[in-house]
C-alpha cells in the first residue's frame, strides 16, 4: 500500500484515526504501533523482523548505557551501532562490495571463476529506520535524550507508518513524546493534514507520474545528443523533486492528521544560494543527520584535529580549515552517495557534490570579495540570477548522473551536451517522448502553480490562512476543486504505468 494509493488515505488512515480516538488515552500509542506494524507487514511481510531487530538493539543499548561511565557507554554505543550497521550492510551492500572486490581482482588478472551474485531482499525502509536507530543510540550516549524504558514505545518511534518508507528521518526527542501522549485528534489538525496530503498527491500523481514516460524514454535511448540529454536531465530533476517532496507532503500530512508534527524535509531548494544551501533545503532530515552524526564527529576526531593542528604549526595555517572541511565533507558525501544505494552512480553523485561544495567553500569568500570590489550587491537581480542558473546547472547535472544506470551512461549524456548539442533535432524528437499534446499544458500549469506556492512560502506568506479566511462556501468550493484537479488530471489508471515512490527504494 503506497502513500499515494486510495486505500491509504481513504481507508487506512481514517481507520487508524477512528481506532485511535476510540481507545483510552493511555493506550492510544498502541493503536499507532499496531497500525505501523500492520502497514509495514503489508509491504514487507516477514522482513519486518529487521525493523524489530533495530528496535531491540536500540532499546538494549539505551538501557545498558544508563548509569554507566563514559568509557563503557562508548563501548556499548560502538557495539550497538556496529550491530545495526551490519544488518544494513549485509542486506543492502554485501553483493556490491563483494562484486566490486571480485571485479577489482579479476581486473588485476587474477583467475576468480564465475561470480554468483549474492541476492538479498532489502526490506523497504531499512535505510530510514536504521538511521533513526543510530541517532537514538548516539543521542542517549550524548545525554541529549533519556533512554526509553518502554520497548514498545521505542518501536513506535522506529516504525511510525507515515515515515517508514521515505522519511522524514525524525529524531526521538522531536516526536516520541507526541506519539505516546494519547492526545486528542483535532479538527484543525485533520483539515491541515489532509490539505497537505492533497498537495502531495498533486505533486506526485499529477506532475511526477505524468513526466515519468518522458524521463524513461530519454534515458532509455542510446543515441544521446546534447539538447535531448539536457531536457532529460531537467525532466528527471523535476520528477524526482515532485515525487519525493510530494510523498513527503503525504507523510507529513498523515502525521499531522494524527496530531504528530514531523520535521520538514524540503524548503524551496531551488531558491538556494549555492549547492551547500541547496542541501540545507533538500532532503533536510538526511542532511542534518549526516551533519550531527558524521560531519561533527569527523571534524572533532583526533585524526582530523591532529592534522589541522599540524598545519597550524607549520607554515600552512590557511590549510588547517580546509583540511577539516575536506575530511568531514568527503565522509559525509561518500556516505550520502552510498546511503542512496549500492551503485557506483550514487557514489559518483556523492563525490560530485563533495567536489562542488568543497570548491564553493574555498571560492565563496573570494566571490564575495569580487562582488565587494565591483560594488555589486549579493542581492542584486544579476547576482541572484547568476547564482540561480549556476545552482540549477549543478543540480540538473547531478540528478542526471543520479538517474543514469551506469557511469558510462551518465558521462555519455554529459559529453553530448558539448560534443553534439543538436538543438534543432529536439524539435522533431519531442513528439516521440511519449507525452501527448494535452500533457504539456497540464504539466506547465501544474508546475507554475507549485512555483507560485513555493514563492509565497519563501516569502513566508501564510497560504493556508488566506484560504481559511475565505467564506465557508468558497473555501469548500476551493478544496472540492483541488480534489477534482488531482482526480481528473492525475496520471493513474488506463493509459498510465503505475510509478512507485522513488525514494522508497533507497
Amino acid at each position: 500500500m503506497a502513500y499515494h494509493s486510495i486505500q491509504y488515505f481513504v481507508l487506512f488512515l481514517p481507520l487508524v484515526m477512528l481506532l485511535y480516538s476510540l481507545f483510552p488515552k493511555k493506550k492510544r500509542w498502541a493503536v499507532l504501533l499496531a497500525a505501523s506494524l500492520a502497514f509495514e507487514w503489508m509491504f514487507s511481510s516477514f522482513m519486518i523482523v529487521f525493523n524489530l531487530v533495530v528496535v531491540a538493539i536500540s532499546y538494549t543499548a539505551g538501557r545498558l548505557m544508563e548509569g554507566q561511565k563514559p568509557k563503557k557507554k562508548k563501548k556499548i554505543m560502538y557495539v550497538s551501532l556496529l550491530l545495526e550497521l551490519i544488518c544494513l550492510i549485509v542486506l543492502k551492500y554485501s553483493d556490491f562490495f563483494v562484486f566490486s572486490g571480485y571485479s577489482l581482482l579479476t581486473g588485476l588478472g587474477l583467475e576468480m571463476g564465475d561470480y554468483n551474485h549474492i541476492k538479498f531482499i532489502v526490506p523497504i525502509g531499512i535505510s530510514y529506520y536504521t538511521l533513526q536507530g543510530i541517532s537514538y543510540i548516539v543521542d542517549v550516549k550524548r545525554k541529549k535524550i533519556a533512554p526509553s524504558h518502554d520497548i514498545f514505545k521505542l518501536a513506535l518511534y522506529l516504525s511510525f507508518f507515515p515515515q517508514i518508507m521515505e522519511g522524514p528521518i525524525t529524531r526521538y526527542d522531536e516526536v516520541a513524546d507526541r506519539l505516546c501522549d494519547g492526545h486528542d485528534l483535532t479538527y484543525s489538525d485533520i483539515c491541515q493534514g489532509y490539505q497537505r496530503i492533497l498537495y502531495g498527491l498533486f505533486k506526485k500523481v499529477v506532475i511526477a507520474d505524468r513526466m515519468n514516460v518522458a524521463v524513461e524514454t530519454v534515458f532509455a535511448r542510446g543515441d544521446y545528443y546534447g539538447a535531448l540529454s539536457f531536457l532529460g536531465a531537467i525532466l528527471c530533476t523535476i520528477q524526482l523533486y515532485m515525487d519525493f517532496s510530494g510523498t513527503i507532503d503525504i507523510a507529513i500530512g498523515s502525521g499531522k492528521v494524527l496530531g504528530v508534527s514531523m520535521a520538514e524535509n524540503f524548503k524551496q531548494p531551488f531558491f538556494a544560494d549555492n549547492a551547500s544551501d541547496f542541501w540545507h533545503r533538500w532532503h533536510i532530515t538526511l542532511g542534518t543527520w549526516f551533519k550531527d552524526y558524521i560531519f561533527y564527529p569527523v571534524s572533532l576526531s583526533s585524526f582530523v584535529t591532529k592534522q589541522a593542528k599540524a598545519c597550524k604549526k607549520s607554515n600552512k595555517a590557511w590549510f588547517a580549515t580546509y583540511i577539516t572541511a575536506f575530511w568531514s565533507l568527503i565522509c559525509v558525501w561518500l556516505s550520502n552517495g552510498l546511503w542512496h544505494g549500492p551503485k557506483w552512480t550514487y557514489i559518483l553523485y556523492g563525490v560530485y557534490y563533495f567536489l562542488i561544495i568543497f570548491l564553493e567553500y574555498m571560492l565563496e569568500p573570494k566571490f564575495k570579495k569580487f562582488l565587494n570590489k565591483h560594488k555589486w550587491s549579493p542581492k542584486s537581480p544579476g547576482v541572484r540570477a547568476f547564482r540561480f542558473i549556476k545552482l540549477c546547472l549543478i543540480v540538473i547535472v547531478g540528478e542526471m548522473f543520479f538517474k543514469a544506470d551506469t557511469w558510462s551512461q551518465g558521462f555519455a549524456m554529459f559529453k553530448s551536451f558539448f560534443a553534439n548539442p543538436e538543438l534543432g533535432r529536439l524539435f522533431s524528437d519531442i513528439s516521440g517522448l511519449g507525452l501527448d499534446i494535452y500533457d504539456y499544458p497540464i504539466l506547465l500549469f501544474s508546475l507554475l502553480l507549485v512555483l507560485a506556492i513555493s514563492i509565497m512560502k519563501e516569502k513566508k506568506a501564510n497560504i493556508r490562512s488566506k484560504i481559511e479566511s475565505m467564506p465557508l462556501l468558497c473555501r469548500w468550493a476551493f478544496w472540492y476543486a483541488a480534489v477534482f484537479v488531482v482526480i481528473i488530471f492525475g496520471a493513474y489508471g488506463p493509459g498510465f504505468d503505475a510509478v512507485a515512490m522513488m525514494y522508497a527504494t533507497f
Partner: protein
Amino acid sequence: MRMKNIKKAALFVLGLVVLLATSSALIGPKDYAAFNYADVRTKLKSLDKEADYSIDVVCAGNSQSFYACSPLLIYKEFGFTSYDTGTAGQRLCDTYAVLSETYKTQAPKLVVLEVDGVIDAHPGVHEKEDDYFFNAAETVFPILHYHSVYYSSLPKSLVNLTSSRRNEKLLKGYHLRTDVKPYDTDGEDSDAYMYVDEDYQMTDTAKSYLEKIVDLARSQGSEIMFLSAPSATNWTMNKHEAVSEIAESKGIYYLDMNLQLEKIGIDWEVDTCDGGEHLNSSGAKKTSSYLGRFIIENFPGIFDKPEGLSDTAKTALEVKEKQIKENWDRDYESYMNLLKEG
C-alpha cells in the same frame, strides 16, 4: 473533536460524495465497459470515418497488431479492405468493446485477433483484478476509472500529435514508425527469443473475454483467426503453446509469425523500431503481405460477392465498391507520400 466539527467534516465528505457521484454519471461509457475508454473511443471515432459496411477484415489487439498489420498495403496487394482496431496495451475487455461497437457499423468477414493481450495478467476493466478496494471505488465512482477520458474529446488534430498516432485515421488504424532500432542479436538475451522459461497462465477473466470475443465474431457471421506478430523481446514458445491449445480446442487458425520469420523475411537489423518489440514500416510491409496471403489461402471465398442479388442490388453494390476503391486508392497514395517524406 467537538460535535460541531464532526458534523462539518461529515457534511464536507457528503458534498464530495455527491460531486463524485454526479461527475461519475456525466463521464464514462454509456454503451460498454472498457479499461482504456479514452483510447477505445478515439479508435472508434477513427473507424466511424469509414463508410458503413466497407471493411472486410478487422484486426484487433494491442500495439503488436497496429504495428504489424497495414490495411492499405494489404488492400493494394490483395484487394480486400481491413481496419486495425488495436490500441496501445489493449486489454481483452477493450478488444471485446471495440469489436462489439464495430459490428454496429461494419460486417467484417474475418476478425484477426493478435493474441499478445491474451496472456496479459490484467485483461479486465479494472486496474488490477486483485485490488478489491480500488475496484470497488471505481465501481461506485466511475470517474476514478474514466478520469482521463477528457482527451478523447479534444480535437483529433491536438490529440494525435505523437508521431505514430498522427496518421492513424488515414492509415486505417495502422501506426506508422519508420525509425530503426535493431534487435541486438548478439545481446545477452538474444538466445532466449521464444525460449524464455516462464510459465504463462491465462487468467479466468482472460478466458472468459476470449470466449466472448470468439462467440461475438461467430454470432455475427465472421470467421476468426489468431495472430502473433513478430516480437523478438515479447513473444515466447510458452505463450505460443498456451495460445495454440486454445486455438486447437476452438478450431481456430493460429498464425504465429515468430515461427515463420525466414519465410516472411524479417530482418531484425532493419525491421524493428524499438529493439525488437515492435515492427517498423519495413517490417510491417513484410508481415502485411504475409498475412494477406495467409487470409486469401486459408479463407477461400470469404470475400466473394453474395449470390442471387437483384440487378438493382448488384448495381448499388458496384457503385459502393467503386467509391470504396476510389477512397482507398487515394489513401494509399497519401500513405506512399508519407513514406517518401519519411
